[in-house]
């Protein structure tokens, strides 16, 4: 179902191609097994690389002896941090981030900071021999106390992970902040405020205070990290890899290996899921070094255990919320304290949480303190709307409880306080053209929201999720016109989920072609202009804008060819509904296809490139409604009904928008009910398999109904917004609200596992 709000851009039938559901261009390869992903490379003379990982969560490396491993038949090379030039060139300054920090995460230098931290790498003639060789590498560790989480890290007198990390304080979003000079595990403290919260709480009739906790969780992409590197002696380095951003990989590899970017070509393989987690590479510089040492191509593929233990998950968090409202539901003040675990190095998604938590609401008095805290866990990486789901779990759970305290409907409370265009969020930035109220109106009016629940032990939960999308990091696109009237579209935007077809449809719409007449390709770093990574819900929007701009150049150039044939000026040619028309003599017409066939005799091929850095994908709102039934004997949650709402501006390909909504809902449900890293006191992940790290299966979920809302975005020619991230935010609080209502106990810690539910029910019954 699609609900159209803005008649000016989302009007059904306004577009010929956008809003239809063609088969994706890369589909046949993917249903037949022909598509080639990161691990699908096989090259002549190829060797296999494997990584030795730390068994300790925190230790100093005294020495590494690789001699026995090097002596094993079949072993061709061993690498350590000594082989990464950037590590040799300068000391780690963890507060600075950048490629020096990435290198440290690729191969540890003086210290290991989490169980699974890479220490050395082996290249051998088979993956099995490489694995055997790992066991022959002798690392002498001085084991240090484990700083397992934010609690231990922020304690007075805590063991410090980094000798040279000092706390930075910032009162504005962005910027490095002011260095306090205090050595700490707290890397940064961001404080944003508006108005006066003390005054605001005085004006409140009802105040709720609660602490919410979430655990470390993983993106759970099905394809482990994989790459193949070939460094021709004295020549160029080529890396075939599964990544969200080839140009980012190129830049990082160049910096880590201290070679010019011009010496590197990154070739994208199909990517088997990323969700933000594959924005950062781990293997590429190591594979490159091993290739240089051996003169052979090196293939490296992580195991699932390595993915869990050695790549970036999302943060465990602790968030306190104090929120006050008048009897009529007007929220007078909100104060949040938000602690995000960064893992081994600074850089949690805390800023995403701080800037989004209550930004969908107009609240005059807000004070939010966010903390980025290092601890002995893997360095966190982005995961779909980074930092937002944890923040929304806290804020939207609090709103739900506050609504109960006020005797209000939870959607009415939200609508009473919803921010409108021009209202300032705590970031200080006024909301642009954003349909927050419109989405909430649709949710409240939806039949699911008022349908009878029926039966005992059932609950309905509702929540919204606001995402501040950025975009604008840069996208390039090239269009080549073929003589048969079709076009090839070349971009550098890795396709995680169907963006090829969504971008191609925008080109088709512009050129008056069908989606099938546009052939989209994602190409390597030598073959397209610089393009930022596929993330931030920006690809269909940003790369779409660049591709539309290239298509407009195509129209201009082809119009000039028509003018030459008609012996008129280029401005005498118009392009209407896919037809070139001469305004001087309207009998002179060419279809796109007719004119395409004449290009080679009117001056040669038409090839047009454009880039776009405008940004403006903008914020947008999503929401979920869940009906659940809880088994009071086992604590199992059955999801009876699920509806997800998303403002997409204008759906390019509605099926893939729905797919984003349904997939985000799945990940949010997993986060809410099942998923967590279990750490031993020594900091070892005890459930590093897909059996014990319990992601939702087909049996756990019902059909997920979708409601696409099209509130057009004025910053895109066709009104598009982003789709990728928002849908993971609201499922956490919506599920928590549903279960809390079903059992009559507020569940403030994720995951809400069967054990946690039974404990809560038992406690409730004991206290009766």
């Amino acid at each position, binding site marked *: 179902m699609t609900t159209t709000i803005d008649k000016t851009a989302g009007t059904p039938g306004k577009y010929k191609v956008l809003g239809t559901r063609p088969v*994706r261009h890369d589909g046949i390869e993917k249903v037949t097994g022909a598509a080639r992903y990161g691990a699908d490379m096989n090259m002549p003379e190829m060797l296999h690389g494997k990584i030795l990982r730390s068994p300790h969560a925190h230790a100093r490396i005294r020495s590494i002896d690789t001699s026995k491993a090097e002596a094993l038949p079949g072993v061709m090379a061993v690498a350590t941090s000594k082989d990464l030039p950037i590590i040799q060139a300068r000391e780690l300054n963890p507060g600075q981030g950048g490629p020096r920090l990435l290198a440290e995460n690729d191969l540890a230098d003086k210290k290991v900071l989490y169980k699974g931290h890479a220490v050395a790498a082996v290249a051998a003639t088979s993956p099995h021999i490489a694995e055997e060789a790992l066991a022959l590498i002798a690392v002498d560790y001085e084991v240090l106390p484990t700083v397992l989480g934010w609690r231990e890290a922020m304690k007075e007198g805590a063991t410090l992970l980094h000798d040279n990390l000092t706390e930075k304080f910032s009162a504005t979003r962005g910027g490095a902040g002011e260095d306090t000079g205090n050595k700490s595990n707290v890397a940064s403290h961001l404080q944003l405020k508006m108005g006066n919260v003390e005054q605001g709480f005085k004006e409140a009739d009802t105040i709720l205070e609660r602490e919410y906790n979430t655990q470390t969780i993983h993106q759970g992409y099905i394809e482990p990290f994989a790459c193949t590197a070939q460094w021709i002696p004295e020549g160029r380095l080529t890396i075939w890899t599964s990544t969200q951003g080839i140009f980012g990989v190129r830049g990082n590899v160049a910096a880590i290996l201290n070679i010019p970017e011009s010496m590197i070509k990154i070739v994208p393989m199909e990517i088997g899921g990323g969700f933000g987690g594959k924005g950062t590479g781990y293997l590429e510089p190591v594979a490159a070094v091993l290739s240089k040492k051996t003169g052979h191509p090196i293939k490296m593929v992580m195991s699932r255990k390595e993915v869990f233990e050695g790549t970036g998950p999302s943060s465990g968090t602790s968030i306190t919320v104090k929120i006050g409202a008048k009897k009529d539901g007007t929220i007078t003040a909100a104060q949040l304290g938000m602690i995000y675990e960064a893992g081994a190095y600074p850089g949690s998604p805390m800023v995403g949480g701080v800037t989004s938590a209550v930004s969908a609401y107009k609240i005059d008095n807000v004070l939010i303190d966010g903390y980025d805290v290092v601890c002995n866990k893997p360095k966190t990486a982005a995961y779909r709307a980074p930092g937002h789901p944890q923040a929304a779990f806290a804020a939207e759970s609090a709103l739900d409880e506050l609504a109960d305290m006020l005797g209000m409907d939870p959607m009415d409370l939200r609508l009473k306080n919803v921010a409108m265009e021009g209202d300032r969020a705590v970031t200080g930035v006024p909301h642009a053209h954003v349909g927050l109220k419109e989405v909430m109106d649709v949710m409240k009016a939806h039949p699911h929201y008022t349908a009878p629940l029926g039966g005992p032990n059932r609950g309905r939960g509702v929540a919204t999720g606001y995402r501040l999308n950025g975009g604008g990091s840069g996208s390039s696109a090239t269009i080549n016109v073929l003589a048969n009237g079709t076009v090839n579209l070349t971009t550098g935007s890795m396709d995680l989920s169907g963006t090829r077809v969504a971008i191609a449809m925008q080109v088709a719409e512009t050129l008056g072609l069908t989606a099938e007449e546009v052939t989209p390709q994602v190409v390597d770093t030598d073959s397209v202009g610089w393009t930022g990574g596929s993330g931030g819900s920006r690809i269909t929007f940003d790369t779409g804008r660049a591709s539309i701009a290239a298509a407009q150049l195509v129209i201009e150039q082809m119009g000039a060819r028509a003018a030459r044939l008609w012996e008129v000026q280029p401005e005498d040619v118009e392009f209407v509904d896919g037809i070139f028309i001469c305004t001087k003599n309207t009998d002179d017409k060419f279809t796109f296809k007719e004119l395409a066939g004449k290009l080679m005799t009117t001056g040669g091929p038409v090839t047009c490139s454009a880039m776009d850095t405008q940004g403006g994908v903008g914020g947008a709102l999503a929401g979920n409604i869940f009906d659940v039934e809880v088994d009071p004997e086992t604590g199992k949650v059955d999801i009876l009904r699920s509806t997800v709402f998303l403002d997409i501006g204008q759906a390019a390909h509605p099926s893939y928008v729905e797919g984003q909504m349904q997939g985000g809902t799945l990940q949010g449900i997993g986060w809410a009910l099942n998923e967590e890293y279990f750490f031993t006191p020594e900091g070892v992940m005890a459930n590093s398999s897909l059996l014990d790290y319990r992601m939702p299966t087909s049996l756990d*979920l019902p059909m997920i109904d979708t409601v696409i809302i099209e509130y057009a975005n004025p910053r895109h020619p066709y009104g598009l917004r982003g789709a990728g991230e928002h849908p993971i935010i609201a499922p956490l609080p919506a599920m928590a609200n549903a279960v809390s209502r079903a059992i009559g106990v507020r569940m403030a810690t994720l995951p809400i596992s069967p054990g946690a539910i039974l404990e809560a029910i038992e406690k409730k019954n004991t206290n009766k």
Partner: protein
Amino acid sequence: MSEKIHVHTTINDTEVDFLAESRQSLLEIIRDTLGMTGTKEGCNDGNCGACTVNIDGRIVDSCCVLAVEAEGKNILTIEGVASPEGLHPLQQAFLEEAALQCGICTPGFIVAAKSLLEREPNADEARIRHWLAGNLCRCTGYDKIVRAVLKAGEVMNQGDGAGRATTAAGAGPTDQRDVYND
């Protein structure tokens, strides 16, 4: 270097011979030795289903089968699902229903679902969810996958493509998941 063992088997109706170390999985041989990379590795311990193949009518995780166990067996991989005449109804339905996003789990889902529909083309939503519970997808929320399998079942019931829906390795008398589940 371990000693290698000669294995004679049939993959996608073609007789295949390969040499395998005793420690190598069928998945490793299919992908790295035979170069058929359509079968994917997601976990290498039997928990994600990305490496699903059909051996003598039973769907199995090929990462948990030793390559030497393939001796004399009849194996179907994703590369054998389409025919020269065209896509299998399941493949067509996955495309039309947009039942894939990143696509890495798709081969495993199609091989697993094919095995179900050859036995039970009328399988309903609950049965499909039960059957596919051993295949993890992280992108789609399963909604469109289930719809695609329902649609393919309808097509196969109408006889479209029924002729090519069953290969020698297709239907079998028993199924692993029946044994485990029932």
